[in-house]
């Protein structure tokens, strides 16, 4: 077994995330690669254990007959087996395809059929059932591997099933019989080889598989963790991160799998998305990437708990946060760095509330905080800057392996997504205002969709991002998605996401969808946040039963009207939301209203709530 820990003599080949893990296992075999919480304890996995498991599973893949270029699909929550299954596939030259654990069977069948996956790694009975339900339509699917045996072992008789434990045994047997087979496969890998298919979330139309090569991934790793990368000094083995966003999304794959392999950062898997606040407090990560929804939720937690605190605590908190707001203003003007004055104010606020607050939020030790994957409101970022956690907004998409631009420490400008990476060329299309990027991280095309590929990458190699933006002092500001830009009946161009984000700053609002394309004026469908509004209603002694009942209360409508009026006050008359309706239910992925990444499918929403929308444009609807 020790022989495998030596750097392979053939290891002069292409650097991949797998060779990076192998090298770490040689250099720091006992170092902590990751932690996952089991029965209340954070169990550690060392680099050598990690590498050992990757080798076992890679050998098992060879034993199953997985060939170079075959697709291996993984549908699981974030856990160490996800990383092992992924890296083992890359080791033998296969292509990893990630599925969201929330994907319903209809989407599972699309992704599995489209990718032609031969192997599926399913987390548990729930995920396995989805695949089995549709497996008749998937002739290419030969092997079904499952990680959690509960409910499966002894009950399911499908011949394609193999448990994770059996898989490891099989791998060990193969490893004993064919030592070095995996290392040989690794040495054959070329930078142009396909490494993973990442399916776009598909706000419009069916998801497409973006092909990322080994070279794309290495380019992104170099851009984000290099000397001019996200933070200086770069992340290292002493840093901790929390992994909780879906691993099949390019952002989390970067921040969990690739960052871990490239920098040695200790990855900690959250128990589930619902336990993120608790896990954050336990882990106190030094490196924290979150989507806007999480930042908004953290801010809402502060606001709600703050308003419910006893008088003394509330007053101390208000004073501390007022100081923080001043700190934020000073830091914002200084690129996210402290000035002498802001440092002093921050010191006072630190003693008053900020230290305790950051401890409670789990941000006490954060050294780099990032936000991306969706537009975020400046007010949210400003709050966190005030408590000494400057959030660096980053920009990228699956099609350029998520490396386009980033705010750099000390050069933050809120509202922009920062400066392009050194390896990335970026320009704005003169005609349409579309953001175009070019560089080594630009993807190889869409899987089996040359038509879509041709639309995305032009003859000169420029990737059409579909986002509209402007450059300010070399920093990019994204206005909106190109297809979301609305032209009102009056002929005005309106970017809805800015208005929507301004409304969503309120902790009482969960969703806001602005409508107004080819309409006389703007309206909005608004979804309230059940926890905070329910809390508010209880304090106001408003009786309610269900979510729908709550949305129908006149008081709640008044409350939301107040928020909308507040936002309207800062907008041009054409951009103001003239009237709105509350959505009668929480939007849901299962119902096709949201994508797996919780983005709103506008078309589905417009279709489903047509009467509601039309009622806002009928006579007398405008208040």
């Amino acid at each position, binding site marked *: *077994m020790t022989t495998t820990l030596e750097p392979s003599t053939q290891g002069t080949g292409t650097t991949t995330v797998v060779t990076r893990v192998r090298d770490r296992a040689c250099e720091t*075999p*006992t*170092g*902590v690669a990751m*932690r996952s919480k*089991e029965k*209340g*304890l*954070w*169990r*550690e*996995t*060392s680099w*050598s*254990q990690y590498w*050992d*498991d990757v080798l*076992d599973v890679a050998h098992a893949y060879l034993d199953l007959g997985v060939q170079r270029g075959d697709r291996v699909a993984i549908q699981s929550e974030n856990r160490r087996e996800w990383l092992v299954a992924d890296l083992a596939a890359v080791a033998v030259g296969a292509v990893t395809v990630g599925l969201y654990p929330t994907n319903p069977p209809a989407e599972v069948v699309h992704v599995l059929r489209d990718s032609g996956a031969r192997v599926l790694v399913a987390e548990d009975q729930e995920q396995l059932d989805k695949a089995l339900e549709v497996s008749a339509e998937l002739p290419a699917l030969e092997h079904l591997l499952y990680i*959690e045996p509960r409910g499966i072992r002894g009950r399911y008789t499908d011949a394609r099933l193999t448990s*994770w*434990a059996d898989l*490891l045994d099989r791998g060990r047997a193969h490893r004993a019989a064919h030592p070095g087979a995996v290392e040989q496969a690794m040495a054959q890998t070329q930078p142009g080889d396909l490494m993973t298919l990442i399916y776009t979330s598909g706000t419009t139309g069916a998801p497409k598989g973006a092909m990322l090569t080994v070279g794309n991934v290495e380019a992104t790793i170099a851009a984000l963790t290099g000397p001019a990368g996200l933070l200086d000094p770069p992340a290292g083995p002493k840093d*901790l991160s929390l992994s909780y966003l879906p691993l099949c999304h390019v952002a989390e794959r970067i921040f969990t799998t690739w960052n871990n392999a490239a920098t040695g950062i*200790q990855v900690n898997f959250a128990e589930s998305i619902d336990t993120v606040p608790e896990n954050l*407090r*336990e*882990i*106190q990560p030094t490196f924290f990437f979150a989507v806007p929804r999480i930042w908004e939720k953290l801010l809402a937690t502060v606001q709600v*708990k*703050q308003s*419910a*605190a*006893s008088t003394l*605590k509330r007053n*101390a*908190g208000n004073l*501390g946060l007022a100081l923080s707001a001043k700190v934020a203003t000073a830091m914002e003007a200084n690129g996210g760095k402290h000035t002498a004055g802001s440092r002093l104010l921050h010191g006072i606020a630190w003693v*008053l*509330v900020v230290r*305790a*607050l950051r401890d*409670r939020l789990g941000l*006490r*030790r954060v050294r780099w905080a990032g936000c991306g994957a969706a537009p975020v409101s400046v007010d949210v970022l400003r709050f966190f800057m005030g408590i000494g956690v400057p959030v660096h907004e980053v920009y990228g998409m699956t099609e350029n392996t998520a490396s386009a631009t980033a705010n750099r420490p000390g050069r933050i400008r809120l509202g922009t997504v920062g400066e392009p990476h050194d390896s990335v060329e970026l320009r704005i299309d003169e005609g349409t205002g579309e953001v175009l990027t070019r560089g080594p991280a630009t993807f190889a095309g869409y899987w089996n969709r040359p038509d879509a590929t041709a639309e995305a990458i032009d003859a000169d190699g420029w990737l059409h991002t579909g986002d509209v933006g402007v450059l300010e002092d070399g920093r990019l500001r994204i206005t909106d998605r190109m297809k979301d830009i609305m032209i009102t009946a009056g002929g005005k161009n309106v970017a809805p996401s800015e208005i929507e984000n301004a409304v969503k700053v309120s902790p009482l609002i969960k969703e806001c969808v602005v409508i107004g394309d080819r309409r006389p004026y703007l309206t909005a469908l608004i979804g309230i946040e059940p926890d905070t509004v329910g809390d508010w209603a209880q304090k106001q002694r408003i009786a309610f039963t269900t979510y729908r009942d709550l949305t129908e209360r006149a008081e709640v409508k008044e409350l939301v009207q107040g928020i909308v009026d507040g936002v309207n006050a800062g907008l041009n008359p054409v951009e103001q939301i003239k009237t709105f309706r509350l959505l009668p239910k929480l939007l849901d992925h299962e119902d096709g209203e949201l994508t797996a990444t919780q983005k709103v499918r506008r078309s589905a929403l417009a279709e489903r709530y047509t009467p509601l929308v039309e009622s806002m444009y009928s006579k007398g609807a405008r208040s």
Partner: protein
Amino acid sequence: MTAVREPSKSQTPAPAEAKGRRPLGRPMLYTQYGQDMALLNTGAKKVAVGVLLVVALLMPFLLEDDLLRLLATGCVLAIGAIGLNLVTGYAGQVSLGHAFFIGIGAYTAAVVSGDPEDDRLYGLGITFLPVWLLAGGLAAALVGFVVAPLASRLRGLYLAIVTLGLVFLGTHIWNEWDAVTGGVGVGRPAADPVLFGVDLSRRTESFSADQQLYLLMFVLLCVFALLGRNIARSAMGRSFAAVRDRDIAAEVTGVDVRRVKRRAFVISGFYAGCAGALLFSITGYLDPSSFGLLLSVQFVAMVLIGGVSTISGSIMGAFFIALLPRLTRELPEYLPFLSSSATQTPNVFQVETLLYGLLIVAFLLLEPRGLFGLWIRIRNYWKAWPFSY
């Protein structure tokens, strides 16, 4: 999962941190259960205990002798209170007979250390402290072992009444067995605290008697408190709690209820015996009337006021009760109608007795978790800062 991990664990080195280390500054990140169960599981606790120890060791050089004597008594009472808390607080077996066990310890120690030349009283003449301390403890533990079967047959109120009976039984024996106790109104000398040839109850060149006694009792309290805490946080303590919360459920989960109750009484008896042996070596003299119902009630008060099923609460309660007389003595200065003489009414001794009752009632009504509960409230207030929950 775990079954999968085992084989490769044996082949590859485990992470260095698996040996109980964890990333710095993350008190809520546990990589082993031991970290959660540790005696001093947070940094704040380590600092606080360290500071307390230093302050306690400086006391003899800062305070007057009469206060030191009071604190020494407090230390001994704390040992007894921990014993009662183990059986009543942790194991849930209400015992009003604690005074009986205290008496057994006190008289056993007195007999072991007593003067063999004296014709009137029994005495073995072994004045070496550890010997008579252990003898007192073991004798009371043995009685605890004998009494324990009562607890396996009776519960709650009935057990309380029966243990109350022990106190009266004891009072009768102490009153009548003159050869051991010296008889009512006469009494006998208590055990002599002699350690390696030095009688700690007599002044030496560098320390006064009270300084020596305080230090002795404080060290013994530390030993017994540590022992109690370890009993409470180990498998035995968990089985105590299981029996307390629901004995039938405990039995179903594999706890031998009879054995647990027996252990609780034996351990509690041992603590009481040791406390009894030490308590009177401070004053040097003991009288049969000391072991009445009032002593039992005082111990119950210590546990309830301090905090049920907490070791630190028992200590707080014991010191509170020990220092209470001192506080009531000051009362006549502020409340002129109170007398400090026992022959007049109302007097401070009556107030003192009343206060035990009132405090028990007040704590049970307002803060059932006792002084420890008050501390928890204060701690949680700051822990939740800047929120309320």
